[in-house]
């Protein structure tokens, strides 16, 4: 068995270090005037949300590449991206709820972003349920790719569809919404912490993504070896 590549080992350590650094910076960033300490959730909320969306978009692209090339490598990439993103997006939702309780006075509201987030989570949970029911690796990969493509197209449409209703989710970066509750503008220190959190979560995502791909490759090898033994 081949050992972990050195670059990946280094990336593991870097990922842990940037997570610690991002936590430190978020805790030491100036406290927001109205919302207080709970606003610090924001740094990790956006960090995980951005990387989760990145993963879902990547998964959609891998779908297309897989359906064209039929190379199982892309299927393993897709599973890795969706699995990591699913967890990151769940963290986003939980952190958002923690922030929403004091800011909006409710854990949950059927706002476009929140609803889309919930629907997106359900789509990718269904994705794994679909894969679980199929034994043949080729068919599993084909169905997974098709469903990830359909789901990946549907999620943004859901978002725009719900936009027909109003939103209270604040838009902190780019654009403003008069009806948003809990919006604020960032000071320079907050901005540094914010962009560092984005950077940190991108590194963490790449690290986990790479590890998961490696795991998928090893899993594949084990299955092939098992087949050889039984034959």
């Amino acid at each position, binding site marked *: 068995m081949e050992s972990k590549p050195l670059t990946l080992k280094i990336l593991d350590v870097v990922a842990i270090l940037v997570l610690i650094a991002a936590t430190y910076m978020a805790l030491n960033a100036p406290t927001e005037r109205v919302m207080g300490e709970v606003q610090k959730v924001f740094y990790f909320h956006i960090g995980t949300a951005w990387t989760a969306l990145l993963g879902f978009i990547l998964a959609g692209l891998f779908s297309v590449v897989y359906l064209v090339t039929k190379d199982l490598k892309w299927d393993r990439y897709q599973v890795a991206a969706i699995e990591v993103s699913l967890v990151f997006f769940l963290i986003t939702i939980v952190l958002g709820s923690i922030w929403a309780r004091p800011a909006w006075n409710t854990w949950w509201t059927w706002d476009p972003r929140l609803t889309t987030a919930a629907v997106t989570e359900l789509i990718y949970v*269904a994705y794994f*349920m679909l894969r679980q*029911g199929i034994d043949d690796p080729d*068919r599993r990969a084909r169905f997974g790719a*098709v469903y990830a*493509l*359909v789901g990946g197209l*549907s999620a943004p*449409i859901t978002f725009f*569809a719900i936009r027909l209703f109003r939103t209270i989710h604040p838009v902190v970066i780019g654009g403003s919404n008069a009806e948003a509750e809990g919006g604020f503008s960032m000071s320079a220190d907050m901005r540094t912490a914010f962009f560092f959190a984005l950077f940190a979560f991108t590194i963490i995502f790449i690290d986990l993504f790479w590890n998961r791909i490696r795991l998928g490759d090893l899993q594949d090898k084990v299955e092939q070896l098992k087949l050889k033994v039984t034959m």
Partner: protein
Amino acid sequence: MTDPFETVIEETTGRAKVSTRPRATFFKAVSAVVWKDLQAEFRSRELFSAMLVFSLLIILIFNFALELDIKTRQSVTAGVLWATFAFAGTLGLNRSMAIEKDRGCMDGLLLAPVDRSAIYFGKVISNLAFMLIVELIVLPVYSVLYNTNLFQPGLLLVILLGSIGYVGVGTLLSAMAVQTRTRDILLPILLFPVVIPVLLAAVKASSGFLTGADISEVMLPINLLIAYDIIFIAVAFMVFDSVVEE
């Protein structure tokens, strides 16, 4: 016993080979699949009767669950209708593909020398037909039971557009669901999160028509429905090959 459906297909494709225009063969193949489904359904009536009884039961359940008195009726009719159509729809979609799989008809269909997407479109049209028939029976029943007139051209248009989107995605996903181990329970789980835009827009447009809202308010969800129908039928058309490929 010879399979009557297979002969239909073979006849059609046999004729199709003679024909020189490829477009004509495609439509012939589509209509052959539709015809076979309709004829099989006409003989057994198992799918249609199950869908119809199930939708009437759902309306009954909603009646008790929501206490559909005159006041609530106004605001929830569109929601009740679409929830009914969505649930009854999965029943039909699942069954229509399971029949193909169980009796080995899918292999027969795939062996036919026609474009695979013809099978998809044929299935979509027959599923759509079943769904529309059920809806056309549910509407007057609902109208009578709750004393509201649901026969408005606008509402019928919304129901048509919504059903096209629902069936378009549903046929693709049910073709996948029946090939898995958990096939009986998987379809709604796969389908519902993906068709949420359809249900959302359809409910919004339907309640707009029922409450007599301004036409400009209803146009937005209708445009969304049209966009959804086009996007997803195009996607399904492109990927259906990889779903049925053996």
